[in-house]
């Protein structure tokens, strides 16, 4: 299988490694290493090195866990939904989204393990499972999700791996094994297409379940402002929201670094920007419902937490979250003139920060103000926690970069297929929608 002249640029990152790549990789590796040292320290001396204490038993590790699992919805929802709805503009962006899903899930799970007081006993979850615990539902559904989304990432990679194999680039054996003898016969193609569409359908409900269950970890308890039925959908919407934002940041970086302006066009950012705007409005709707019902009900214990978020010690985080998740993206994205690549990326960065803050303002204030009035404790994360968090982010970016060095980050065969057949197909399809055009009706 040959890669056409015009698509050569997609293979360039795999075949050539610039000095800039090594420098960035070295910096990220150092940050990861510092985080790793911080974790060793925590492992050795216990969670006492964090800022957690009675009654704030959960802090930024749990925030990171919820945040990372949320980001993972980029791949599934963007790639699977767009694939199912036959949105042709998806072709250039699906892979970069799917990679985010798989990699970020590892860090979501990783943060839970970091948060455990006895990580050496983590296998007890399998040895002594207790099925009424929402944490066990989490383990089950995240494992499913990681498996399904890895398969969903791998399947569309096969034809591209075969292209790399046929070019005879370095690590021949590696690509040969992974290509599974792909020869692009019509039969193989048919099976692959079928598998991809099955996986796309399978992955969506799993993704929804994952974030619903993550929210259940909080809402199944009777803690004030956690015990809320809206948490399931609220978390799913937030997850898709932050997922789209993360995807756009990744796309903008890939586009700039690998000069893929021809593939990741303004139009992609425009469309995704509109999606982000819709999610931002939905997010506002959910946040508004959540807080208005609490305020109107005026239960003393809930109001204490409510006030700590509105005007108390957590007001800064809360209002910054509202600014980042609603005000900034709304102003930028509602206006066509500012819905450019730069505009959408600024909005996306704001959303990512805002969604992290959202997780934080859900987890911490409820724990700081427990029902019994005698224990209170303001939570301040320590350097160890910051270092480990930075390490996680650095490691995620590093792994993502390494992925772009091993596999093409834009799906080559899907672009080719788009050029060859989908123009014709879309033409036919649109004709089919219209009365009196003689297109085939289904």
């Amino acid at each position, binding site marked *: 299988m040959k890669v056409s002249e015009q698509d050569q640029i997609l293979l360039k990152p795999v075949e050539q490694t610039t000095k800039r790549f090594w420098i960035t990789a070295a910096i990220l590796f150092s940050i990861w290493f510092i985080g790793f040292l911080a974790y060793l320290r925590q492992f050795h001396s216990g969670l*006492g090195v964090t800022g957690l204490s009675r009654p704030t038993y959960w802090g930024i590790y749990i925030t990171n866990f919820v945040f990372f699992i949320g980001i993972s919805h980029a791949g599934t929802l963007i790639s699977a939904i767009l694939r199912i709805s036959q949105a042709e503009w998806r072709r250039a962006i699906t892979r970069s989204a799917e990679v985010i899903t798989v990699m970020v899930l590892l860090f979501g799970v990783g943060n839970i393990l970091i948060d455990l007081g006895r990580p050496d006993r983590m296998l007890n979850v399998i040895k002594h499972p207790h099925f009424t615990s929402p944490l066990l539902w989490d383990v089950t559904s995240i494992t499913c999700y990681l498996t399904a989304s890895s398969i969903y990432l791998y399947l569309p990679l096969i034809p591209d791996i075969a292209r790399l194999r046929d070019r005879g680039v370095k690590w021949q054996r590696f690509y040969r094994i992974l290509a599974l003898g792909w020869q692009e016969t019509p039969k193989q193609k048919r099976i692959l297409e079928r598998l991809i569409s099955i996986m796309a359908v399978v992955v969506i409900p799993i993704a929804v379940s994952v974030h619903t269950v993550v929210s259940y970890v909080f809402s199944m308890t009777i803690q004030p402002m956690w015990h809320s039925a809206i948490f399931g959908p609220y978390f799913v919407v937030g997850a898709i929201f932050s997922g789209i934002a993360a995807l756009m940041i990744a796309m903008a970086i890939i586009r700039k670094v690998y000069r893929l302006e021809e593939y990741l066009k303004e139009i992609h950012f425009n469309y995704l920007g509109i999606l982000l705007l819709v999610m931002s409005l939905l997010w506002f709707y959910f946040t508004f419902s959540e807080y208005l019902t609490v305020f109107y009900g005026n239960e003393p214990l809930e109001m204490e937490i409510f006030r700590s978020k509105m005007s108390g010690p957590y007001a800064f985080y809360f209002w910054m979250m509202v600014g980042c998740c609603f005000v900034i993206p709304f102003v930028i994205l509602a206006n066509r003139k500012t819905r450019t690549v730069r505009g959408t990326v600024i909005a996306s960065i704001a959303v990512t920060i805002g969604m992290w803050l959202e997780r934080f303002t859900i987890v911490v204030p409820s724990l700081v103000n427990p029902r019994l009035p005698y224990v209170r404790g303001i939570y301040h994360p320590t350097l160890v926690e910051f270092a480990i968090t930075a390490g996680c982010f650095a490691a995620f970016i590093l792994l993502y970069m390494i992925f772009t060095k091993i596999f093409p980050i834009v799906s080559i065969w899907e672009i080719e297929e788009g050029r060859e057949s989908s123009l014709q197909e879309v033409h036919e399809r649109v004709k089919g929608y219209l009365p009196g055009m003689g297109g085939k009706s289904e």
Partner: protein
Amino acid sequence: MTRWGMVIDLDKCSACQACVVACQSENNVAPPNQELHEQGRSIHWIRVLPTFEGTFPHFRMRLFPLPCLHCDNPPCTKVCPVSATYKSEEGIIGQIFSRCIGCRYCTTACPYTVREFNWKKPVWPEEMKPIRNRDVSIRPKGVVEKCTLCTHRLQKGREKARVEGREMIPEDYIPACVEVCPSQAMIFGDLDDPESEVSKLVRSRRAFRLMEDLGTEPKVIYLSEGGGD
């Protein structure tokens, strides 16, 4: 079936904290130090909880000795992913320290905040080490611990009764805090036995449970002040 419970008479309680000290030494809870205390990390399986009602000058302070309340409908046991915390047949909420993975879900689910976490390896002064209780395991860092109503004493009492070839009597099993209470404000026994002292007291008008509206059904029941018996 036996259902162990405790009654704490707030009229008799002088908040002397003898129960706190007794619990500390009975259950090998490492002595608290200034640093841990300031960080909010000192461990107590029972503490004296102050509550304040009203504002000055119409002001009242109440003091509740607060162990784990051993709820009949416990929020903590449901959420544990590894069954490290469980409700025994006799209603005691137990904790398997060697199984706990330290996820602290039970501590966040407990509305009474009576579960404790070992943030660091517990430290004893050298001279206190020989007097630790050999019946109770020493918890490592990273696990959750809590009041178990001194279940090791239940085991001991049961074995003693069996060796002596008789039925268990109330004196065979008394938790350390109840045993030392100088004003006998704490009474322990079988809630299901209509003749026991606790079940009589539970039926008194003064009996109330902490945050009863949550539906957790605690088996530690308080008698409010003003009884004047």
